[in-house]
């Protein structure tokens, strides 16, 4: 086995060169190669932490904005509902008032019309009474040849009207 032929001087020189190369590599690695890696890793970690922090701040801001917006919307909705209710109430009151006045007017009109009808009826009845009395007097004179007493004719007509009016 060549590795165990320790009489070979190359075994020793190999070890000496190993120490030189390994030592140089150690210096190179520790002084030149590793610091930038540590720097880059630290920078990246810091950048990620800063970005996360910024994102968190922005999210809080957005949350606050959303809350404010929701509050404003709720307030506006409440205001609108109040205004709507007020308008509805006013309209209802107006309508009730109008209805009441209309009813009053209609009742007045009705009463006036009824009074007019009553007057016309009374007038018509009066006219009928005199015409009926005349007709009755003439008919009596033609039939009997005697002119009846006007008072008696009027009384008879009145009685007749009264009985027919009762029958109505």
């Amino acid at each position, binding site marked *: 086995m060549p590795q165990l032929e320790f009489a070979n001087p*190359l075994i020793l020189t190999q070890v000496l060169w190993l120490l030189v190369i390994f030592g140089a590599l150690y210096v190179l690695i520790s002084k030149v190669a590793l610091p930038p890696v540590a720097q880059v890793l630290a920078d990246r970690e810091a950048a990620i932490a800063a970005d996360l922090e910024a994102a968190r701040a922005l999210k809080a801001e957005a949350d606050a904005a959303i809350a404010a917006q929701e509050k404003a919307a709720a307030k506006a909705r409440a205001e609108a509902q109040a205004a709507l209710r007020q308008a509805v109430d006013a309209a209802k009151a107006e309508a009730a008032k109008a209805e009441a006045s209309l009813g009053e007017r209609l009742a007045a009109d009705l009463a006036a019309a009824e009074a007019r009808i009553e007057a016309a009826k009374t007038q018509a009845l009066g006219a009928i009474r005199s015409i009926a009395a005349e007709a009755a007097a003439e008919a009596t004179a033609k039939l009997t040849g005697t002119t009846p007493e006007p008072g008696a004719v009027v009384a008879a007509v009145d009685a007749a009207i009264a009985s027919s009016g009762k029958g109505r």
Partner: protein
Amino acid sequence: MAVEGKTIDALSQFELTHVAAGFTNSNLYMLIGGVAISALMVLGMQKRARVPGRLQSLAEVSYEFIYNMVDEQVGREGRKFFPFVFTLFMFVLFGNLLGMLPYAFTFTSHIAVTFTLALVVFILVTAVALAIHGTKFFSYFFPEGAPIALAPIIIPVEIISYLSRVVSLSVRLFANMVAGHVMLKVFATFVVLLGSLGVIGIIGAAAPLALNVALVGFEFLVAFLQAYVFAILTCIYLHDAVHLH
């Protein structure tokens, strides 16, 4: 092996050759590995991008892998050993991986190399323990509460187990790499020998070839795993040195 050596030559791949000034082919691959590690770290981190590219990701993953290993195994006090553990891990890993290239030399298959690395770890660990705990360090060899009568047995056992760390650390890596490369070479030689026997031989060569394909995949696993084991055992020893149990 002398007679078989003429047909199946599995060990010549570990032969050292002289380049210049005692610099061997083994050292050449150490240099290539060192340059490759430096290139990975320096070129990979050149852009210092916040969103890393592929090479930078590789550099960062290596960094974080070893950093977390040191942090978990040794704790906060271990951070100053991180560059050492990182260098050690990358050096062993690149040595193992470079050995997977055809015609390349696997310097981690030399016991002299792995033993030297283990010795560096051992000396560092002992120096750290002595620097932090002073003479209290020697209480490590005699656990608190053990009966004094057993001291003649316990103390030598503890000292031997402490010293044998160097051996176990170095032999584990060395043996794994040698065994893997010998197997690869032996089965590859089977393929060539059977292939020279004509049509039947070529059909027969399919089996060792298929086995070698699987072995190459397995060797990549071993290359990574042994570098990992070397690094994590170093971390565990450092933990013992810093905390003395």
